């Protein structure tokens, strides 16, 4: 009669009705599952059930999915702040920072992200990203990357290289701009022309970041 305990437990977990289930509930560690994050439960429920059928007395191992925090749900009304995660391959610049607005340089133009912005994926071009929090504005020059805005007012911005504007050397920028403009004119193959054009784009973006 205890063979069916696990199956009955999972089905009637809140109110164990049969005496077998009741007795087993006192012994079996099914209570620990109720503490698992609710979103993880739905993903692993099949595995947990199958485990329980075979090994009812041992806790199932935690799967990688159960360690992931479920994304916060989309609130019914627009939240007052935007939560920004700004990461680089070697560092996490901003992690869950609550700000008022973020302006990112997308290939389709400057994208201003406010809380409640529609879910968007934007590819970034070399340009200035500014983070507005109250009266403070922090600006970074971003080399390229992506911005993911989620429906629950979370924004993930990833960039390969991002520097605060005061770390940019104006003379090197001018030199680079002149060098690449000259390369664009003298380039022969398509690839060389593309590389030179990228150089011109990046350096003119750096230039307008410093002057603008």
């Amino acid at each position, binding site marked *: 009669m205890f063979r069916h305990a696990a199956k009955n437990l999972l089905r009637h977990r809140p109110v164990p009705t049969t005496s077998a289930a009741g007795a087993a509930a006192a012994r079996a560690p099914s209570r620990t599952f109720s503490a698992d994050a609710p979103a993880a439960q739905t993903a692993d429920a099949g595995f947990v059930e199958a485990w329980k059928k075979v090994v009812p007395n041992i806790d199932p191992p935690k799967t990688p999915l159960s360690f992931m925090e479920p994304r916060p749900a989309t609130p019914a009304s627009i939240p007052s702040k935007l939560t920004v995660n700004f990461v680089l391959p*070697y560092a996490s610049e901003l992690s869950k920072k609550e700000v008022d607005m973020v302006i990112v340089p997308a*290939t*389709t133009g400057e994208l201003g992200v406010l809380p409640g912005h529609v879910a968007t994926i934007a590819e970034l071009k*070399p340009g200035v990203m500014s983070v507005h929090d109250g009266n403070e504005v922090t600006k970074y*020059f971003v*080399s*390229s*990357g992506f911005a993911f805005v989620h429906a629950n007012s979370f924004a993930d911005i990833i960039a*390969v*290289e991002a*520097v605060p504007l005061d*770390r*940019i*050397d104006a003379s*090197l*920028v001018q030199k*680079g701009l002149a060098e690449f403009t000259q390369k664009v004119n003298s380039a022969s193959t*398509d*690839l060389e*022309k*593309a*590389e030179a*054009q*990228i*150089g011109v784009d*990046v*350096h003119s973006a*750096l230039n307008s970041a410093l002057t603008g």
Partner: protein
Amino acid sequence: MSAPMPFWRAAGMTYITYSNICANLVRNCLKEPHKAEALNREKVHFAISTWKDGKAEKPVIRSDLAED
């Protein structure tokens, strides 16, 4: 629906190559202590070995570190 092809893709470059070139250009335009740190951070050292007929051939070492 899709945007027109960017010039670098039309020239045969992939997005990763484009992104890495942009990042390198930005790193080269930094002011001194930050520039040295950034370039140092990106140094790599690895060995590639190709296998042929079940045997490893001599590995090719690619390195940005000073050769000793």
